[in-house]
């Protein structure tokens, strides 16, 4: 016992950081998931982490901290020590907190450990909707102004970004935007006819489309998905969308800014190898997610671009509560 205390004290005296980097992890790592149990972020994180644990040789205890569009979880991790023992497992939303007035922190205060995958957006409609494709929907909106019910998930969510794109490209659409707390409940409402059209992530709607409980209108990508090869891309409907695509939500693991470099490197390596696991790759592919598995500068660059493009898109559509300029988010080069 005395020896342990002695060792601990001397380790502290010699500088905990140096000792920690070699031995990391010496204790349980906490993984804070930004979204609720059973949602896509939750499932992706719970699917990849056990593989990463094997490489890391440590345990990651995952916990869902929900609320405030994920801001509660983000602040939680931000207020913990930058020692690599608290991971933030999140999605794209924090990059829009500042412009949406939801908080004063974003991924700029964090280091990306690994950006795992990105999703593709798709426009799906209720089976009874009086149109079968994108052009038909646009015609319907024109003929019946203020009648089409479009699902939404609040400011900064995927539907709001897609709606902003449509407003920018096609001119302001006269539709009713019905808010839901997540794409799961919204897609349920779509099947029950409470809403007509929903911009959703492919992964959440793919099973419904396969089973014919909802119909796809267009994929928001430049290329057709090999999961649903028959669904036309939005670019084939209107080329102007090309300027904003590819765009999609993403999942990533982050640590607080200031975490020692070698700890970050060790974590990045673990999650990179974990995400290469065949089971995980297959799982992501089946749900229509595109693997990214990037870290370091590449990930930082991706985050910067994503934030610039999306923040300015929302700004131009008049959906932000503060201009991106105020936070030093540069306008993307044309």
């Amino acid at each position, binding site marked *: 016992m005395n020896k342990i205390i002695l060792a601990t004290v001397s380790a502290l005296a010699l500088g905990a950081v140096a000792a920690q980097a070699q031995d990391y992890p010496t204790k349980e790592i906490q993984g804070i998931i930004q979204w*609720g*149990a*059973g*949602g896509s972020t*939750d*499932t992706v994180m*719970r*699917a990849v*982490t*056990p593989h990463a644990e094997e490489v890391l040789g440590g345990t990651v205890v*995952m*916990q*869902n*901290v*929900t*609320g*405030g*569009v994920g*801001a*509660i979880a983000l*602040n939680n991790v931000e207020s913990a020590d930058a020692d690599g023992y608290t991971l933030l497992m999140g999605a794209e939303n924090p990059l829009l907190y500042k412009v*949406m007035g*939801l908080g004063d922190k974003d991924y700029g205060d964090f280091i990306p450990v690994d950006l795992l995958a990105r999703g593709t957006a798709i426009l799906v409609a209720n089976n009874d909707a009086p149109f079968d494709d994108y052009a038909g929907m646009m015609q319907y909106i024109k003929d019946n102004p*203020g009648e089409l*019910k479009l699902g939404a998930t*609040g*400011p*900064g969510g995927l539907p709001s970004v897609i709606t902003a794109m449509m407003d920018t490209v096609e001119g302001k659409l006269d539709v*009713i*935007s*019905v*808010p*839901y*707390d997540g794409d*799961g*409940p919204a*897609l*349920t*409402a779509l*099947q*029950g*006819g*409470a*809403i007509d059209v929903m911009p959703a992530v492919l992964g959440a709607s*793919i*099973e*419904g489309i*396969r*089973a*014919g*409980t909802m119909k796809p209108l267009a994929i928001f990508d430049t290329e057709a998905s090999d999961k649903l090869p028959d669904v036309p891309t939005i670019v084939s409907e209107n080329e102007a969308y090309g300027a904003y695509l590819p765009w999609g939500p993403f999942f990533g693991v982050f640590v607080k800014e200031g975490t020692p470099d070698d700890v970050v490197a060790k974590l990045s390596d673990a999650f990179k190898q974990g995400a290469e696991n065949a*089971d995980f790759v*297959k*799982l992501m592919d*089946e*749900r229509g997610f595109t693997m990214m598995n990037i870290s370091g500068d590449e990930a930082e660059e991706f985050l910067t671009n994503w934030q610039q493009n999306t923040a300015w898109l929302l700004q131009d559509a008049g959906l932000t509560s503060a201009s991106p300029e105020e936070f030093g988010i540069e306008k993307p080069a044309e």
Partner: protein
Amino acid sequence: METVLAFLTVFTQPQLFLLVGVGTFAGVYVGAIPGLSVTMAVSILISFTFSWDVYPAIALMIGIYMGGVYGGSRTAILLNIPGAPSAIATAMDGYPMAQKGEAGTAIGVTTVMSFIGGFIGIIVLALAAPFVSDFALSFQPRDYMLLAVLGILLVGSLSTGSLVKGIFAGAFGLAIGAVGRDPLTFAERFTFDFRLLEGGISFIAVMIGMFGVSEALMQLQHADKTAVKQKISRIVPSWGTVRRHLPLSLQTSSIGVIIGALPGTGGDIAALMAYDHAKRVTKNPEVPFGQGAIEGLVAPETANNAAVGGAFIPMMTLGIPGDAVTAIMIGALFIHGLNPGPMLMVDQPHMFWFIVGALCVANCFMLLFGLTGIKLFTRIVEMPRAVLIPLIMLLSIVGAYAVNNAITDVYWMLAFGVFGYFMRHYGYPLGPVILGVILSRLLDDNWRRAIISDREDLGRFFGGILHSPLSLVLFVAVILIFVSQTPVWAKAKAMLRKESA
């Protein structure tokens, strides 16, 4: 034949059978501790069972789910602290029974009734799943809103004593439920610029504080009183008792299945609605409601266990979760390489029948574990208060912390405990507060969705109600229940009687 084999999988493979048993046993105890929820247990199991095959993993989760829903009633009866939101109504009559020394009887009835409710839920799942899920899907935002209004009207049933105080308590609950960032627009409500309030107030913390801590404080006043001696001669209710309550349990089970199958409502609302229903249809209870009526145990306990089968209905037929636990199970199926969705029943029919089988086994284990060990449990109430009161406090603090691993939840819990103590002192009922918190979002979100969908036009909104048979039925029910609680109704009834006489 394949169906039968799939159904029997869990019976024929000892390993799966045992896992369901272990899960149910753990569930009963996890469920009994307030704050340790089934949702939490199942999501921990996802990581734990990651490398397992899908059948054993699901078997364990189903056991925990079934046992946990039942387990919440234990602490509700013995200590007046519902182990889970779905056991709130159980405390209303269960605790008074324990106070009279009838805890054993109460637990016995609860167990048998949970078993009956559980089976009805499973039967509906097995035989009518596609039909029920179509019905559940047809609920529009305005129907959910009407359902919530119907729920709000339960305030009358849950208020013992003054109705005005009950209404105040219910409104207070609605306001607590609205605190935090609004989930639809993310606007801050009742947060007064405190970051602490942004995430809202944990509803479990409110519940534990209001029931647990305030109970402990109440008991401090009678610290010297000796504990009630519990009669434990008769635990398993007689066939006569079961048969007498069979019609009621069938009705409340159907409430449970439907409410459970609706995505967005679960066992907690089902149990409260069933309690209200029991109070309405039971003309002459042997003991008045609120003072230990058996019917007050039968209704919520059948309903919340029937809601388990109900919650699986949209999950299995459409890949849509019926509640938080089935949402996690959908995630688990996904991680195990299945594609939960409308095609699951077509591609993997044996998965459906395996789940039905596992639910049956879990339900039987629940009966077994529920009826054994009661003697030991009732000792808890017989403990000297000097031990019991600190135990309640400890349970409450651990429970509140466990919800989100956040110390702020413990502070909330304690604050609401003290507040609840004063509410009790001044005769304000606590049930309606919890009812308000539970229904707050259901009412608020769906009202806004409904009115936004109708372009914020009230005329269109009421037109919509008239055009949909479902909305119309719910609307009429709301009106009838409302009117039946006013003096006008009593007068009209008296006049009618006079005329016919």
